[in-house]
């Protein structure tokens, strides 16, 4: 825009007056147009400002809606993302649940994610452990049943031998003697038959005793052990020093399972000593305390290496003793040093109900 300073000429005024006037008119016209332009400009500005006032409200709601839906989308997306992230964990959770409910035959599949793979490995290790525990428990129960049915069978056969066969033979002997004394049976033949029947009675009695002494059931552990010791001492000439505490007359009675286990362990231990120990003296102690029974078998024999015996032919004997005690909830320890004798100890807890 040019300067609005009026153009002025001195001297030749009349000659330049007309063009000046034209210029002034032009300027005026320009100024008028400028004012119009300015006016319209302001009008536009004003209109704009008014329009701005009018669109403020709908703009706010739109923005709020945008934000909210953005949030919702984010939520949904993150839910999908979380789901996608947890999807590989789901089989592991299922596997853990299976293990928890005792189904241990299906290990969890190992996912590709290395961290999850670690979890799967740990889980499968745990499942394997649970499985082996379950197998162990099953094996234990089977063994328990096997041993108790073995003892039941022995008791039954021993009793039948003693009460049935033995008694019948005694009756036969009585009959023979009656016939003989009545003169019905020739004296020579009678005596010969008598000797034979006596021999039979003895062997039947011994068979029953070896299977399972009736003493153990009739009179208890101490009587049965006492008898066992008398037999062994008579057969091997080795003195066995026997002392019991708190079990005289065995009142109240020890449970049959515990009594049998201790009897068999002592029997095995004493037989081992007779066979291998070359001992001078043997000590057998049974102690009943309110909460447990303890059996101690100690000898002054040659001893042995406890670890190596587990890999030898005698391992079964040791294992058998261990199993019997373990099945009663007890512990068996054998301490031996070559040249310094052997100490065996079996401890079996007595439950409240029993003692």
């Amino acid at each position: 825009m040019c300067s609005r300073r009026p153009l002025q000429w001195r001297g030749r005024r009349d000659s330049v007056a007309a063009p000046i006037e034209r210029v002034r008119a032009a300027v005026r016209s320009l100024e008028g147009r400028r004012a119009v332009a300015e006016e319209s400009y302001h009008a536009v500005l004003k209109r704009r400002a008014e329009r701005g006032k009018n669109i403020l409200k709908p703009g706010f709601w739109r923005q709020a809606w945008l934000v909210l839906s953005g949030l919702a989308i984010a939520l949904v997306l993150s839910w999908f993302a979380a789901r996608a992230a947890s999807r590989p964990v789901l089989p592991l959770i299922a596997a853990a649940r299976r293990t928890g409910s005792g189904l241990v035959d299906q290990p969890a599949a190992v996912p590709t994610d290395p961290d999850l793979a670690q979890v799967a490995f740990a889980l499968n290790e745990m499942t394997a452990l649970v499985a082996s525990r379950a197998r162990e428990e099953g094996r234990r129960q089977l063994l328990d049943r096997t041993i108790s049915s073995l003892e039941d069978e022995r008791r039954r056969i021993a009793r039948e031998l003693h009460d049935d066969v033995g008694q019948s033979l005694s009756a036969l002997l009585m009959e023979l003697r009656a016939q003989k004394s009545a003169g019905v049976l020739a004296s020579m033949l009678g005596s010969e038959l008598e000797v034979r029947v006596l021999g039979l009675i003895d062997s039947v009695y011994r068979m029953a005793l070896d299977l399972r002494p009736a003493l153990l059931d009739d009179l208890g552990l101490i009587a049965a052990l006492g008898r066992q010791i008398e037999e062994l001492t008579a057969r091997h000439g080795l003195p066995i020093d026997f002392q019991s505490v708190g079990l005289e007359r065995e009142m109240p009675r020890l449970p049959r399972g515990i009594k049998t286990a201790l009897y068999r362990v002592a029997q095995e231990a004493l037989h081992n000593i007779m066979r291998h120990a070359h001992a001078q003296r043997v000590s057998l102690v049974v102690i009943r305390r309110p909460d447990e029974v303890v059996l101690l078998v100690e000898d002054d024999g040659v001893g042995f290496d406890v670890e190596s015996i587990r890999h030898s032919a005698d391992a079964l004997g040791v294992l058998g003793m261990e199993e019997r005690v373990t099945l009663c909830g007890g512990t068996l320890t054998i301490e031996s040093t070559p040249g310094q004798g052997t100490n065996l100890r079996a401890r079996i807890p007595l439950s409240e109900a029993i003692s």
Partner: protein
Amino acid sequence: MTIRILVADDHTVFRSGLRALLQREADLEIVGEAGCADEVLERLQTTQSDVLLLDLAMPGGLSGPQLAEAAAKAQPAVRVVVLTMHEDTHYLREMFRVGVHGYVLKKSGIEDVLRAIRAAALGEFYVDSALGGLTVSSLLAQPAPVTEAPGAVLTAREREVCRWLALGYTNAEVGRELFISERTVESHRTSIMAKLQLPNRAGLVRFALDSGLIK
């Protein structure tokens, strides 16, 4: 005066054989027979008898020793003579403990039965002649009590160690209980054994019992 006898055995053959042998004796009379535990206890109440000849392996709920005890207690005036296959001093001791008067093996001759009946009728006790040896050796096998000799008295600590050992604890366990080392326990143990001249743990336990260290 005749001795009235009740015969209890579940084998009729045995009873008839016994009857045949006893009938030959002028002073004996069989007044009743029983074939099971219940019958024995019933006949004891209903029959006037002096001696009960009792088999130890009778059918019924009671074991031999239980039946013998029940019979001996039911009629104290009736003396019980046990006839058994058990060639064993533990049964023998238990039988006399519950109150029988005679213990005779079934395989023994009738002479033993007769002697037992006559002794029992007089209120005396009779042990089968075949069991005399066993009875004597079982008496001899009873160990003599262990006591402290003068000059071989245990110290208080040794007494303590002795008590734990007699309860079945190992050296290590006794050490833990008494806050001393296993080695110290071992030396106490050696000292106890030497002072009391004990050969082994059984002897030690016996001393602890005899001297009241344990009950």
